[in-house]
Each structure stands twice: as C-alpha cells, then as structure tokens.
C-alpha cells in the first residue's frame, strides 16, 4: 500500500509546481484531485469544480460534512472563502470559454502529438468522459498526469493512441512518475527526469522518440 501511494504522491507533488499564483485550475478525478493537498500556502490558486463550484476548499472535518457540497469526483468538500456556486451550464461555459488557466487530467494514453485517451476501453470499461472533453478544448493549458507505463509494463505514451480519444492534439505537458515531457511542434521533449531514472529508462518506456531539452533536469523530483 505504501509504494503505490508514494508514486501517486510523487506525481502529485511534481504536478503542483504547474500551479502558479493567481491561477484558476481544474483538477480531474483521481490523482489530479490529490494535487490540491500539496498546494503551497504562498500561492493563491482557485480550484474549479465542473459540478458548479469555483473555490474548492479542503475536505471537511467530520462534523462539517455537507452532503450537498461535493467536487466533480463526488467527494465531500468545503468551499473556500470567496467561493461561488453556479449551475453545470454556467460551469461548462466557464470551462469552454477559456477562463481556466490550467487543467490537470488523468490519462490512459497520450500520443506523440498530444492526443489524449482517458474515458473508455471498448468492451471492457465505460467510464464516461464527464467534463474532460470540454476541458481539453477550454483550459488554456492541459497537463496530463499518469503512470509512465501500464500494469503490464507497456508504454502509455504512444506514437498513436489505441483507445478512443478524449481530444486530439490537446495535451501540453505529460507528468509521470518517471519524467516530465512536453508536447512540442517538433515532437515530444524530455524536460525532467525523476529521481532514480536514467534517460535510457525513459526512452525505453516511451514509444515515440524523445527530444532532449537543452535545460533537461535530472533527479528533478
């Protein structure tokens, strides 16, 4: 139990650095939601929830749980001071209209050109796209966080996605337990390598070729 937790935590801690002071941010369901736990107190970041809340606060103490107050992952939450509630139509207008600085989403597969698949495995799993298909076109920047390889050890960063897409050419950055990779016009660019990994490890676990950043950071997180 402790090892998977620490991988999730490593990814979440690294992803937190993507949140800049003053940002409005949408965190997807799953590991992305965990990022909120690591937000530095010297940043003012406002978290948006698709179900109609701008300003998600911390999880409530047990005596302050309000069953009518949840995030998009259906977890009970609180609202921060200065929050606002609105309908799902207003919420998606906010997302689609480009008013979110950053969305951090989970991923099943990401392609060399930034295609994202994260909502369905034909014949096996129907998760539903929820708000992800709106987010990938609406948020100003899309960061996907996921394990670098799947349970069978196969790459999740592929030349072409095999699963049904969530959006085409929408991902700006991929953060995994092993590396940070940017999607650029020239191709995938390796910008950071996690502690304990070599460049060759990353290359071996990533299907498309990787360009090396001139400012590549080793042991970055």
């Amino acid at each position, binding site marked *: 139990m402790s090892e998977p937790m620490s991988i999730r935590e490593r990814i979440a801690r690294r992803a937190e650095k993507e949140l800049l002071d003053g940002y409005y941010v949408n965190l997807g369901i799953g590991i992305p939601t965990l990022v909120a736990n690591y937000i530095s107190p010297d940043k003012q970041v406002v978290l948006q*929830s*698709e*179900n*109609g*809340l701008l300003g998600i606060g*911390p*999880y*409530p*103490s*047990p005596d302050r*749980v*309000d*069953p*009518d*107050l*949840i995030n*998009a*992952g*259906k*977890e*009970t*939450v609180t*609202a921060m001071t200065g929050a606002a*509630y*609105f*309908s*799902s*139509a207003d*919420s*998606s*207008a906010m*997302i*689609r209209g480009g008013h979110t600085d950053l969305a951090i989403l989970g991923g099943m597969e990401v392609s060399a050109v930034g*295609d994202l698949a994260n909502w*369905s495995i034909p*014949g*096996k*799993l*129907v*998760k*539903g*796209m*929820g*708000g*992800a*298909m*709106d987010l990938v*076109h*609406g948020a100003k920047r899309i960061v996907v966080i996921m394990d670098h390889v799947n349970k069978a050890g196969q790459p999740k960063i592929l030349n072409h996605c095999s699963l*049904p*897409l*969530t*959006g*085409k*050419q929408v991902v700006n950055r991929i953060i995994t337990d092993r590396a940070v990779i940017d999607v650029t016009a020239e191709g995938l660019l390796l910008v950071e390598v996690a502690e304990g990994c070599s460049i060759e490890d990353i290359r071996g676990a990533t299907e498309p070729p990787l360009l090396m950043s001139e400012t590549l950071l080793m042991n970055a997180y």
Partner: protein
Amino acid sequence: MKQILLSFQDAVSRIPDGATLMVGGFGLVGIPEQLLVALADRGTRNLTVISNNCGVDDWGLGLLLRNKQIKRVIASYVGENKEFERQVLSGEIEAELVPQGTLAERIRAGGAGIPAFYTPAGVGTPLADGRETRVFGGKEYILEHALTADFSLVRAARADRMGNLIYNKTARNFNPMMATAGKVTIAEVEQLFETGDLHPESIDTPGVYVQQIIVGKQEKRIERLTTR
C-alpha cells in the same frame, strides 16, 4: 399559484411508459430522491432518461436501472455504477455518452429556444464520427442539437408557491437548466415557503419554469465521504 402535490405516487402517476425524463443531480447530490423512489415503485417502463449520471446501484436512478425501467440513457458519466456499466457493455441499455458541458448546454438550449449550436468538445474523437463539423476562426466544432423532455424532475432546497426555486450549494448542478427544458417540470423541494419569503434576487429558477411542486424529505446519501 402552482399546483402543490401531496403524494409522490400521484406526482409520478401521469408519467407514462416511454416518456422522456430529465433528472437533476450530479452523483447523488441534488437528485429528486422521492420522485425516483416513487417511479421505481410504480414500475413505469421504457423510459428515456437524460441525466449527468445514473446514481449508484441502490439509490437514485440506480433504482430504475435495477428494475430495467430505462430503455435509453443520455449521460456524461457512468463512473462507478456497476449495474449501469454492465447494462451498457451488454447492450441491454442504449447509452448515449455526451461530454458534460455539451449535455448541460444542450439542455439549456432546449429550454432557451436554441435548436442547435456548435461546440469544440468531442472534435477528433469517436463522438465526431459521422457528425457534422464546421470550422469557425480556424478551429473545428461539432453541431449539437437541443434536448427537451416530457417531464423534468428537479430537486431544490426551497420553493415558494409561485414556483420560484433556490438550490443548495452544489446541489444546483443540472437542475436549473432541466427545469427550463421539460414540458412539465416537477420540483421536489425540501421546504415550501409562502410567496414573498424568497428574495427576488436570489431566485435560481423563476416560477415560470415549474408546473408542480412536492415537498420531500431528503436522505441525502453520501457517495464518497471524504474528511480531513
């Protein structure tokens, strides 16, 4: 001024087999709990349900799924509802999965007299297969059509006798748009107030959209209790 119903049995009795229903809520939050219980008890069949998701296996729309009362679902998320997922994968239920923002906007359009609009969500995905797309300002969009329903079942915290509704926190979600897009909108409310007791600037759903009101005690089951 609005019809105040006295029993949930009565409230759902005019919903015929084969009706199209919009059902408010996100997860179990903001769902018209007792209307769904009554609909499950009555056994109304062949329903088309428009709702963001389908509750859990034993509560909310999950009750109707379990009874196989639903023929077709338009939703954005199957999530953790195992019975819903099973019925979708086995083809027992017809499911149209729609991006959440598109679903919300199609419902709003239905209530607002907008027959169709363009949205970027779904472009380049299997959802766009065979669909009409169009480029505006160098970016590709999909044409989406409005949704309406025979009945909209919504849940509000407060109502007055004019049908004005106010929702609580994130229980607002899909309820306001659905209230506008149903031919008959039935509001299940926690509390009914006299006209004038609700502040005109705080009304989320003006009374014009509500045809019937029923007061219902809510269980407000929690799907994922998360605390500090």
